[in-house]
């Protein structure tokens, strides 16, 4: 029987990377000098699992490397070594190294041997440098291979009593004994008192136990390692040959403590035939009392982990789609129910039923949506490390505060918001928070603070990145903007507009002034990424006090709050997030511009009017601006007045892709299915503005030389042809 191990690789890698993340965050949480035992245990467990898995799959380089890490961690855990900043740094380095190694193995690349050797060398150096962190001279007989001198013992007495399911976990005592025999002279005494009658025997259950005497000078840790895989599925007692029973107790506790979820070893074909042979030995009921008196010392550690399962995203998405359908069907039925004409009693019952259906459907939809939701801590967890490293590099002292880590958002949104967040945080450290000396001069504490906060607000998640640094330099930005020609020489824009300029593409060049540089570099990309997610970003700042970037994102990409609008016989959906206001046009405020464009004077601003029917070539009911409505929308930082016939209701819609069966359509971001089963298109405001610029000029020129002269239906009918 051969098992194709490669099918488990993916899981191994996933789990290992998760383990590394855990190690990293735990390491960062470690208080130097006073390490929390539980934290150390967590780190140790993660390392141990990786080592075990790597061993199983034959990634020797990985398991060897992890072994050294584990040894160091083991010493810390046993209290033989103090946690120093040096140790933490080295362990963090090792985590990075291990991550690189695993990535290399996963991609079947070459492992960077030089780096690995260097880090491993450092680890070993630290280990051998026994005095470095040893708090007290602990030279007891539990001796560890590296920290204390090897005990010149005569050997070990091993009591090995597997639980019944030892064989099922893929372990084979024969192999373990063989390994022990390599260490020295091995004497085994079999206790087969638990062996049932042959007829009742389950060949997959281990009924046997052994008392072994191993004459060797190998240290305890080496012997323990042989039993590493069976930890948690057996009772194990290892005592020095010379010692008495009293000391044995401490040993037992020691041997049992590495409680890690040991990945299952493969079932080797040797194990199956090996057992029955032994069980065929004469059955003698010797010590029946000893039988079940064993209390499991430690279950495989599972208590600390969340009850979760791995489900492929496809399955979840299928479920979400289906629920989306259900919502539509429900609202379709609801509509019919409202219009039905039948006797009152029945109607009442039908309406009750429909009302209940609606509630259930909503709840179902919400819980299904929640499957895709993860706490934002997944995105936040990389920051402690990043802030630490970046601050160190820049010789700044920065404290990172995280709050609202449990705020949930969609997995896809989370994946896409990661990089913009990194960018913003890095900017805050690099350009926001000043150097410690500068801060002291300004009467601020040496240690600067960067605060990441997340919370829900309506259907959105808000993420704030604030620092208590110098704030944005208004004058320098303005000066730069003038240089770049973004602002006229005499123009004095509002502060808000000036700060907003850091998101302009023109600003993102490398030659920007030191003070504001990073705040411009790539900020347009940050803004664009956030816009693509249907979100927005704004900045507020106060000179000398710091700046705050506020990101607003939809909780999910699957649904959207929309405003239904009507043009002629067609219904469209405008994302609510892009709407600023809706108003009835006042003819007095309409102005023409060079016979090409119409502008509407909205308070101080002139905003271009985009007639949706012109852009989309529809037949509208209203062609005179005062007959319809203007929806003021914003896309790509530009405001336009979208001219439509009428506003209908607001509604949450399930976003469907047009590209699945068709293609991308300019001005449209997708489609949705309305309550009556028909399809409505969702407008993409930024793209719509682009299209209007292209189409508007082309069609308006010949048709409407003077918009003031009364723009009427001509343009529209021309479009249709």
């Amino acid at each position, binding site marked *: 029987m051969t098992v194709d191990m490669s099918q488990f690789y993916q899981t191994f890698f996933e789990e290992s990377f998760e383990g590394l993340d855990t190690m990293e965050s735990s390491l960062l949480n470690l208080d130097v000098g006073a390490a929390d035992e539980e934290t150390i245990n967590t780190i140790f467990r993660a390392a141990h699992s990786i080592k075990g898995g790597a061993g199983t799959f034959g990634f020797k380089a990985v398991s060897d490397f992890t072994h050294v890490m584990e040894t160091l961690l083991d010493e810390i855990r046993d209290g033989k070594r103090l946690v120093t900043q040096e140790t933490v740094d080295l362990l963090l380095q090792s985590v990075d190294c291990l991550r690189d190694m695993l990535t290399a193995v996963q991609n079947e690349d070459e492992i960077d041997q030089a780096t690995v050797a260097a880090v491993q060398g450092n680890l070993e150096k630290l280990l051998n440098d026994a005095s470095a962190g040893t708090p007290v001279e602990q030279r007891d007989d539990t001796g560890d291979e590296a920290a204390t001198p090897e005990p010149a013992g005569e050997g070990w007495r091993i009591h090995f009593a597997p639980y019944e399911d030892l064989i099922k976990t893929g372990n084979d005592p024969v192999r373990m004994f063989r390994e022990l025999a390599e260490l020295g002279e091995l004497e085994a005494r079999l206790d087969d008192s638990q062996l049932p009658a042959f007829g009742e025997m389950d060949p997959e259950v281990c009924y046997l136990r052994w008392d072994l005497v191993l004459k060797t000078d190998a240290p305890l840790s080496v012997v323990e390692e042989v039993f590493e895989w069976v930890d948690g599925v057996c009772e194990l007692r290892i005592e020095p040959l010379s010692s008495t029973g009293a000391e044995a107790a401490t040993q037992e506790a020691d041997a049992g403590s590495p409680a890690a979820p040991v990945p299952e070893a493969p079932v080797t074909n040797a194990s199956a035939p090996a057992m029955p042979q032994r069980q065929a030995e004469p059955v003698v009921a010797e010590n029946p009392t000893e039988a079940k008196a064993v209390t499991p010392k430690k279950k495989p550690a599972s208590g600390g982990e969340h009850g979760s399962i791995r489900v492929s995203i496809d399955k979840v998405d299928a479920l979400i789609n289906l629920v989306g359908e259900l919502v539509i069907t429900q609202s379709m039925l609801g509509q019919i129910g409202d219009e039905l004409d039948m006797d009152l009693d029945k109607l009442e019952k039908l309406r009750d039923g429909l009302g209940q259906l609606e509630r259930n459907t909503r709840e179902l939809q919400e819980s299904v949506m929640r499957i895709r939701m993860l706490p934002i801590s997944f995105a936040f967890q990389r920051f402690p490390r990043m802030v630490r490293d970046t601050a160190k590099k820049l010789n700044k002292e920065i404290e990172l505060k995280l709050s609202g880590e449990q705020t949930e958002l969609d997995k896809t949104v989370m994946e896409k918001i990661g990089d913009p967040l990194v960018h913003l945080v890095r900017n805050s450290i690099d350009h926001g928070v000043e150097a410690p000396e500068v801060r002291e001069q300004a009467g601020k504490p040496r240690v600067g603070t960067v605060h990441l906060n997340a919370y829900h607000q309506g259907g959105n998640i808000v993420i704030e990145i604030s620092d208590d640094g110098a704030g944005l330099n208004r004058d320098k930005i303005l000066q730069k903007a003038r240089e770049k020609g973004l602002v006229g020489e005499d123009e004095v824009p509002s502060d808000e507009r000036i700060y907003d300029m850091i998101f302009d593409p023109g600003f993102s060049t490398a030659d920007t002034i030191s003070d504001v540089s990073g705040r411009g570099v790539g900020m347009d990309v940050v803004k664009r990424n956030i816009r693509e997610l249907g979100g927005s970003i704004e900045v507020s700042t106060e000179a000398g006090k710091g700046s705050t970037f506020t990101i607003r994102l939809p909780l999910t990409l699957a649904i959207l709050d929309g405003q239904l609008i009507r043009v002629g016989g067609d219904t469209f959906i405008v994302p609510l997030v892009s709407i600023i206001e809706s108003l009835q046009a006042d003819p007095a405020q309409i102005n023409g511009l060079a016979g090409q464009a119409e502008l509407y004077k909205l308070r101080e601003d002139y905003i271009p009017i985009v007639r949706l029917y012109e852009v989309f070539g529809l037949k509208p009911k209203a062609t005179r601006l005062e007959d319809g409505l203007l929806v003021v929308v914003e896309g790509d930082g530009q405001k336009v007045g979208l001219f439509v016939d009428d506003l209908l209701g607001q509604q949450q819609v399930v976003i469907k892709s*047009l590209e699945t069966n068709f293609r991308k359509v300019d001005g449209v971001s997708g489609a949705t299915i309305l309550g009556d089963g028909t399809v409505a298109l969702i407008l993409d405001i930024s793209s719509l503005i682009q299209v209007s610029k292209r189409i508007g000029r082309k069609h308006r020129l010949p048709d409407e030389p003077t918009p003031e002269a009364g723009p009427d239906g001509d343009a529209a009918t021309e479009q249709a042809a």
Partner: protein
Amino acid sequence: MNTAENIMSHELGLSSGNENDQFLTFIMAGEEYGVDILRVQEIRGWDNVTPIPNTPEYIKGVINLRGSIVPIIDLRERFGLARNEYGPTTVVIVVKVIDEERERVMGIVVDAVSDVYNVAEDDMKPPPDFGSVVSVDFVKGLTTVDEKMVIILDIDHMMTKDDLAGIAQNQ
């Protein structure tokens, strides 16, 4: 497969092996066209569609097909035939189109559905050069059933690049 067998299976209306395919035929402007029946997902009556702005006229719009957004194409207009008022017999054949390893679902509007025929590959004649009237790309071959000509369409080529290209060239 030898000729005798071929004839037999043809007469019995059996479809056996790759060389004998079944085609769903439909009528358009008095002519009979066929599409591979394995590509046909369903046949439905004409229903209102949601127009897609700035697309060619023959793309009538999109419909909701059990939760998927499916585009509908008028084949008459695609072929440059006179437009027909949609009536009770107007049908939409929903087909699966495969291009560049992607599968799309589309509806094609035709006058009426006709029949299902077995056509042996040997009986399919390559299309003559129509010149610029109808692109040969759409036509897989011609065959004769009961003395009548049936045009077998290649739907994969019929509704891909041109139809799906950007707006620019269609304006």
